[in-house]
């Protein structure tokens, strides 16, 4: 038996969170949260290539919060299996030997449950190395689930024990701290986003959002591309400071984006009738949305130059005005998780491990909570930016 936080199906709580969560944020991590601390059976690693892991630290991701608060689209309901133990940003210790990785090895996990993990014939995505595009995430010998942390059979990082397949695991160098290692999964996502952005040397980039996704995207863009000016949209003081440390050329507040981008790119700034909405003629070559909100998506679409690329790195909300996509012939690119074969010829996780080893990431995990203080942890994660925290994690061993 083990202690774990379990996400369960509750249409009533989902609707309650949807209806009043915006006005009473406390309810999202309180009575309306479809999450409970339970003692359940440990998941089993019975098939070849699978092993048990004892999570050490497990991060709270925006997608986890989306699930808890009901912000996640029902679209995803078909690719999860309830109840499940969330947590896919994990650094843990192997409890069993796993092929070439001996028991006790510290590992991080690419959470996508691909054909290899499911024991099915590789799909087109997996064959090409684009494992994050796997089409078999609902079949095979584990329950449906796009990733570990959304699947009934595998457990997740928010529990004392989880299971993972060898294809998902990467050994953590001994010299790397747990606090850095737990950031490898989101860093791998950032690596993927930066490479998907296809930034040409000298091109200007806007990163909208300076939470973990935006900051890591900034870091990856600066490290892996020859981007020229990188402008980051940051709301809070600590975010502004970190954005600069991670490679931003300049940082603007959300209400300064049009002014700042116009200035830095020499674009023309226009105001539409009645609504007062603005847009630029000209703008950045590439814009990365790292928030997913309607406002942020609208902004990146409106400040990207004609023929430019917009990368959706945050889980997108609905309702954005797509007029600029049509009118300015924008190329909209989604980025989800990370791939085993990235355009740089390496798994994103390997590049991310490199980055985690040398980037200025000390203090990025700003708060650690035991599982039984999950409401505080989620509250903190919900207000992380305002509180000057980038990443909140569960300290599973302390639970």
């Amino acid at each position, binding site marked *: 038996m083990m202690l774990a936080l379990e996400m369960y199906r509750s249409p009533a709580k989902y609707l309650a969170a949807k209806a009043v969560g915006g006005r009473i944020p406390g309810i999202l991590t309180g009575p309306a949260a479809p999450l409970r601390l339970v003692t359940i059976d440990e998941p089993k690693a019975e098939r070849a290539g699978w092993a048990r892991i004892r999570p050490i630290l497990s991060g709270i991701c925006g997608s986890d919060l989306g699930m808890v608060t009901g912000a996640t689209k029902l679209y995803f309901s078909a690719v999860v299996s309830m109840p499940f133990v969330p947590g896919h940003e994990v650094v843990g210790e192997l409890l069993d030997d796993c092929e070439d990785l001996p028991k006790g090895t510290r590992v991080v996990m690419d959470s996508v449950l691909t054909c290899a993990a499911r024991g099915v014939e590789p799909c087109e995505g997996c064959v090409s190395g684009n494992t994050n595009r796997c089409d078999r995430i609902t079949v095979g010998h584990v329950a449906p689930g796009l990733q570990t942390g959304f699947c009934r059979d595998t457990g997740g990082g928010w529990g004392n024990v989880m299971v993972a397949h060898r294809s998902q695991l990467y050994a953590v160098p001994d010299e790397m701290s747990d606090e850095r290692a737990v950031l490898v999964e989101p860093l791998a996502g950032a690596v993927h986003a930066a490479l998907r952005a296809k930034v040409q040397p000298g091109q200007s980039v806007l990163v909208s959002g300076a939470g973990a996704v935006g900051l890591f995207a900034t870091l990856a863009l600066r490290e892996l591309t020859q981007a020229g000016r990188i402008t980051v949209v940051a709301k809070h003081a600590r975010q502004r400071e970190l954005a600069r440390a991670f490679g931003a050329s*300049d940082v603007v507040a959300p209400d*300064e984006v049009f*002014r*700042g981008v*116009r*200035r830095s790119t*020499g*674009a*023309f*700034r226009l105001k539409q009738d009645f609504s007062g909405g603005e847009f630029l003629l000209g703008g950045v070559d590439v814009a990365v949305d790292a928030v997913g909100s309607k406002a942020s998506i609208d902004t990146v679409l409106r400040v990207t130059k004609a023929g430019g690329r917009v990368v959706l790195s945050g889980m997108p909300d609905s309702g954005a005005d797509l007029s600029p996509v049509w009118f300015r012939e924008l190329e909209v690119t989604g980025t989800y998780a990370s791939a085993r074969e990235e355009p740089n010829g390496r798994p994103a996780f390997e590049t991310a491990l490199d980055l985690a080893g040398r980037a200025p990431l000390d203090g990025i995990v700003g708060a650690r909570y035991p599982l039984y203080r999950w409401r505080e942890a989620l509250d903190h994660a919900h207000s992380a930016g305002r509180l000057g925290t980038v990443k909140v994690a569960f300290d599973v061993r302390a639970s």
Partner: protein
Amino acid sequence: MSRPGFVLEVDDRTPPLLVHNGEGFLLERFPQGTRVVYPPEALPAVRDVDEAIQNALLNPIESEPLPELLRPGMRLTIAFDDISLPLPPMKKPDIRQRVIEAVLELAAQAGVDDVELISANALHRRLTPNELREIVGERVFRSFFPDGKLYNFDAEDRDNLTHLGQTRHGEDVEISKRAAESDLLVYVNVNLVAMDGGHKSTSIGLASYKSLKHHHNSHTMIHSRSFMDHKASKMHHSAWRMGEILTQHVKVFQIETTLNNDIFGGPLEFLQKREWEWSIKDQASMLGTKRALAAAPSKLRHKIFTDVRSNYGLTGINAGAIEPVHEKTIEAVHRQHLVEVQGQSDVAIMGVPFVGPYNVNSVMNPILAACMGLGYYFNSYRGNPVVRKDGAVILYHPVDYEFSQLHHPSYVDFFEEVLAESTDPATIEAKFEKQYAEDPWYIHLYRTSYAYHGVHPFYMWYWISHALDHCGDIVWVGANRKTVERMGFRSASTLQDALEMVSHSVGRSPSITYLHNPPHLLADVR
């Protein structure tokens, strides 16, 4: 008979004194011993303005009378000072209207058909049709504006600029093509303060950025001591050199007018009286106005001040060759503004009012407030600054974070981007000026909307470079802390706090001088 300016020494009988504070004013009790410099009272105005104008045009200085310069078939251009003068704007009819009408009448009598009128706004914003109408009057406006013969100068219209050459210092002289190719350029000036007029009128008012950058830069500005004394101002020296080149190519007939200090009339008349001479009516007006302004919503308050129009009386008009005309003009300006002040002091205090040259019908943003206080008022001296080297300047203004996106779009960026990186004029000039000057969006707004040119906020910042270099401390009383801090200054809640803050550099018993303007004054510091 008007009384000259004088210096009052505050003692225990001195009442609280009026201090301008943006769109409002307050009564401040100054420490005993503070010197208060009062401007001279308004000089008597010329009784028959039309006669004075005719006299100037027919009996010019070192020039043929205007009628002798006019002939059929010639190209005549009349340029005039833009809306940045006078301050506050003048009640109708504007003196420029009366002069322009007289010139046009003579031109018509001489059979001159090819006449164009140009607002000499350089890199200032374009004037709206209504603003042009206010300056030139209805009759001239209707006759010339619809046909495109009355217009704003466009310093970015490359097809309509002419490069006349370079001065002996290598300074480019590039001005309006129409003016450069005219048989006669008549310049109609309003000389409100000593820095206006002379070669500055045409060499600056009708010039492009290529020309202006030679004197509107941090180096020249820091060595212009002061702008109000053209003989000691590097900026004016440059303009004079350019004027030499210009006048080799174009015949200029300069008409300069001087105005008196009759700025505030009606219920605001108490603003130009000495406090101990306020009548019961003045005191009631002051109290009523102060209370009404305090209670009024900011938009209404803004409208009240924007609508202020001043009586102004004409104190002189001179026409003819630029330099001798300007000498006469300066004499008249000095008669109205000059106040003798014995020695510098440790602290200078100034109240920044609601209007400056660049926010007429607009908002005084933080950069303009700084320019008004530290550019104009600080430089309102002849000889030496009122405050000693490394002394302190204390200013009054709310310095709200408020910008006009219509008039000052590049100011917002300057404030957010440039000042966030540096407040040193030379540093920002080297790093940012070119970018702003050549930004196509600012150029577009300058040419087609009513925006100051992209480079204009830099000029405002260069204006204050002398003060930044000279002063040890600059503190604003009652100002928005964040905006003041961005500009590299400090904010105090009260005068006492401000004096406390500057005590480390000027001591606890500093000598203090309060410049009691507007109305305008020019401190002749001996």
